[in-house]
């Protein structure tokens, strides 16, 4: 880092824990570490966020699983993964071995399954490299007509409360929210009150592409999740609204992880200014496999350019800088 400006990039993730910088991978956009480690040392990240893991191994959906869209893409993976047991036996120990701080993303088909996954994780040998758990409630609830948990405050609260019981108190727990709701603040509120020590926003938007040659849905799974720079304005807005609500005292202030369309250090700073303490880099990694690491350096430069020596000084700053002419 010779020649870089001196900026303290460290940020609190909750429960008294501190990350050396606010930049993370995004779940499902970095697999479980080995592949990106060929491009940069994943222990340099604030945290490495793993692909959402469920109880059992899952094949995911058929293909095509992706469609490129204007400044973004759709994906329909179907939460392919090895299952939590294989994850704690193979993936987590590897991440620990390279010195990564890990934010583990978990999900379940039912609220109970979320808790089961959390228990296996908490009991695992390599759990000490885990700096937090991200509860991906933006996935379908089999018990509720496949409706996404995070579309409903009650379902969200139930999952969060059950997972909370399985995790040691000193492990931060983030609820990952979907933007596809009428009122994201009410979901945030429910998650925090149920025990989430932080929130991750946003997951993908539900979208669809129809192939105009074949005139049928492009994705095997018909609809998919929209991600990339195209959705950044929605992420900024969601972070802004939830930060406003916390500042207004509607519910307890918790750290936010911003995600959605971050490609550069400036993009990361935009999410931070809206209220995020930490930032994840997702789809941009497909454009540039070095993106998560590159963003750390670019963010440092961008923060320094504002003459502050500590990134936490800019968290939510845009709320204090409104010009009312």
């Amino acid at each position, binding site marked *: *880092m*010779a020649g870089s400006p001196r900026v303290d990039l460290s940020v609190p993730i909750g429960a008294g824990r501190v990350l050396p910088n606010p930049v993370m991978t995004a779940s499902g956009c970095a697999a479980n570490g080995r*592949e990106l480690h060929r*491009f940069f*040392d994943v222990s340099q990240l604030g945290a490495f966020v793993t692909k959402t893991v469920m109880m059992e191994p899952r*094949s995911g959906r058929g293909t*095509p*699983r992706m469609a490129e869209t*204007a400044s973004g893409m759709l994906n329909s993976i179907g939460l392919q993964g090895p299952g939590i047991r294989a994850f704690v036996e193979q993936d987590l120990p590897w991440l620990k071995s390279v010195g990564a701080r890990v934010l583990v993303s978990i999900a379940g088909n039912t609220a109970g399954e979320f808790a089961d996954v959390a228990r296996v994780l908490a009991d695992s040998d390599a759990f000490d490299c885990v700096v937090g758990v991200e509860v991906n409630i933006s996935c379908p609830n089999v018990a509720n007509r496949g409706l996404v948990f995070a579309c409903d405050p009650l379902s969200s609260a139930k999952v969060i409360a059950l997972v909370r019981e399985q995790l040691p108190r000193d492990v931060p727990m983030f609820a990952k929210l979907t933007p596809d709701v009428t009122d994201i603040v009410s979901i945030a509120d429910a998650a925090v009150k149920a025990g989430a020590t932080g929130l991750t926003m946003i997951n993908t938007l539900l979208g669809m592409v129809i192939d105009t040659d*074949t005139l049928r849905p492009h994705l095997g799974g018909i609809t998919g999740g929209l991600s990339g720079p195209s959705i950044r304005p929605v992420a900024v807005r969601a972070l802004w609204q939830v930060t406003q609500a916390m500042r207004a005292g509607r519910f307890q202030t918790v750290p936010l992880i911003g995600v959605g369309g971050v490609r550069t250090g400036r993009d990361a700073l935009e999410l931070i200014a809206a209220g995020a303490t930490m930032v994840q880099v997702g789809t941009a990694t497909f454009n540039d496999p070095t993106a998560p690491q590159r963003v750390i350096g670019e963010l440092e430069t961008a923060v320094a350019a504002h003459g502050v020596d500590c990134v936490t000084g800019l968290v939510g700053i845009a709320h204090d800088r409104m010009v009312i002419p």
Partner: protein
Amino acid sequence: MTPPTPTTSGATVSAQTSARDGVLRVDGEVIAIRRAGAYHHLTIVAPGVAELARPGQFAALAVGGPTTGNLLRRSFSIHKVSPSGTYGGTLDLVIAAKGPGTQWLTELRAHDAVDVVAPLGRAFPLPTEPVPCILVGGGYGSAPLFWLAEVLRERGCPVEMVLGAGSEDRLFGVVEARRAADGVTVTTDDGSAGHRGWVSDVLPEVFRRTGAPVAYACGPMGMLQSVTRVAAEHGAVAQVAVEEAMACGVGVCMTCVMPVRDKAGVTKMVRSCVEGPVFRGDRVRWEAFHDGVCGVPADAVGAPQAGGH
């Protein structure tokens, strides 16, 4: 954070990538671009790639430049590499202009910048003995085969090539093939060059004549499936390089999966960008592919259960 290392040609290499890891992200530079029938042949300065690459691997190129709305890289088989000293090495690709990304790439001019990640994926596995080999290319799918032929002949393997395409202009490298192989057969769907028909029509004869125990193939999925079938009928193994839609090319997105049996016969949805693009043809569950869509076989690990997820 460490600044990229400039090279003589102005191309730069991401500092964190290193030869040890077998893959590089390089700010490359086009040094030549020329038409080859229906395709464009690009030569790109991409220092370090040549030393790492092996036939069958591919390169993923960013498209559209700084204002681009097309974020995903486009993948291309590596046609050849040359680790020449002056430029720090070049990389050749053969590109068919199709959608916006390939259109942009084929409109590049000498000295334009192009962002390259390479080499990627699993190369063609080479025989340990000097056995005869059949190399089958469909359309631009022949691009990686000349380099493969060279490597095989260096090991004493006689090489037969079969090149097929819809029409003459969509054949790539017929002239090069005559130099690179011991025998060449050409087919076109419309009969505009060589035999009228598909490569699978002429393959049985080539297998009989050469007694090859292995065939290498690159081209459309339908062709790869029939090469696999014909190879099996002649007691040979097919090593096929597939072409699945890829969002990342580096193994992190899970979009490029296909149902493939492992050694134990268990079917998994595997990533064609890291576990492929070269697969043993007889391991691929071809029956799952249908009209551009591929389903998850019911016996695949973690397949959706009836009424389940």
